[in-house]
């Protein structure tokens, strides 16, 4: 049975004298390698040059603030529950009346840690989040010399307060996602 049209018939014919000399074949091979010598390189000079990323690339996470600069995360733990790699841990704390300008909901995450070595960047945390607090961005997690540096706390995850330093995630917030998140018949959107 023929599965593909790529099969080739094996030929065991005797090599001619010229073929047995190998020099034409070697010369041909050398020309092939030489053409690669001048070819465009497949690798890039990484830190100086960066490859173009997809706008919806799933890289390092960000914890969003709302337009008044308050943290959106309410430490519900759904992201940690959704995480297949169990990379997310958090400690919840109740908001004091004096902290209303810092946190949007009456509960907030006192600590929020993602272990970037465990994370598989699947984006399920983002899907699970009912408060639009966590998003994956097209930033790359930096290389570090020790493992404990890869546990990112709130200092690295929460986006800066200044409006112009905020991280743009509009490309990941496609209308379907927004629509889906408004759908109150879904249990986790309630």
């Amino acid at each position, binding site marked *: 049975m023929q599965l593909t049209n790529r099969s080739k018939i094996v030929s065991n014919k005797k090599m001619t004298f010229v073929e047995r000399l190998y020099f034409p074949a070697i010369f041909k091979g*050398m020309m092939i390698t030489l053409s*690669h*010598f001048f*070819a*465009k390189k497949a*690798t890039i000079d990484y830190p100086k040059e960066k490859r173009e990323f997809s706008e919806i690339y799933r890289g390092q996470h960000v914890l969003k603030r709302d337009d008044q600069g308050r943290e959106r995360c309410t430490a519900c733990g759904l992201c940690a529950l959704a995480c297949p790699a169990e990379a997310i841990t958090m400690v919840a704390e109740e908001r004091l009346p004096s902290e209303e300008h810092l946190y949007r909901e009456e509960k907030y995450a006192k600590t929020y840690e993602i272990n970037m070595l465990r994370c598989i960047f699947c984006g399920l945390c983002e899907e699970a989040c009912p408060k639009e607090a966590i998003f994956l961005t097209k930033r790359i997690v930096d290389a570090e010399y020790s493992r404990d540096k890869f546990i990112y706390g709130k200092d690295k995850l929460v986006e800066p307060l200044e409006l112009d330093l905020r991280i743009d995630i509009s490309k990941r917030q496609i209308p379907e996602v927004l629509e889906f998140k408004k759908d109150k018949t879904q249990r986790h959107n309630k």
Partner: protein
Amino acid sequence: MNIDYLIFKIVLIASIFGLSLLVAMYATLMERKVAAFFQDRYGPNRAGKWGLLQPLADGIKLFFKEEFVPSSADKLLYILGPSLSMFVALLTSAVIPWGTPVVIGGKQYALQVADVNVGILYIFAVVSIGVYGIMIGGWASNNKYALLGAIRASSQMISYELALGISIVTLVMTAQSLSILEIVEQQKGMHWNAFYQPLGFIIFTICAFAETNRAPFDLPECETELIGGYHTEYSSMKLGFYLFAEYINMFISGTLISALFLGGYDFPFINDMGFSQNTLAAVHFLVFFCKISFVVFVFMWIRWTLPRFRYDQLMRLGWKKLIPIACINLVITGVVVLLTQ
């Protein structure tokens, strides 16, 4: 013997010694760069501009590695192996004519450490000792892979030195001299031996690949089968010596091929340009160096093009192909020389 003559020779020896080491250092970088370019990569480019400090970084790294001696190794021979390799590799450059004589203070000085009238014989004697470094090192390591590598190296050397020798005998027959300087001088004006002895040139080049243990004949050290072969047990600067010796050998082979077959420092029209003698010597040296670099590049080019030979293929090529062809070439050349005289 004058004192200024002596001083000139010492300076020449020191500069050739330094040059060999420098060339070997940068040959490692060149190899990595060439390999990278053939594989559509950039190669080392972190240390310095275009990675120019990479050999230095490699050298420093090798110096700081642990000096490891296996407990069951023969201590003396274990140290002798790499030392001998390095020593022999540095010896060969003594009889190479690097350019036409220079004039300093009205006196002529030849750009050659020693114009031995049996220069070719000297080189062969020295190169043959080179395999001892590998054999001793491989045997003294008391490791089966190292021993296999050493055995392969010695049998490979023996098989290829025959064909190499015969191709050189052919060359000597036409040149009527064993002095390398004279052979180079005879090739002046584009009478390169490669045009008169194409077969001998090809045989010599193939054997040079085998003699320097370069791919596709790198069976003594083939990583996939013998995890490094004769230098499996070596670390630190002893390993560095082996690798250095290999690159110096490659440089010397390039020098020999250029001197014996590619006209040495000869270049078309170079003698008609009206240079003064010292400028001419400098230009000659530069031309010679370019030729050597090109041959070394071809060495690398071949390495990254051809896969390694199987051991039986290696032996068959050496004994059943190269030696008979070299003999036929010898006979034909003999007849032609006899008829034209």
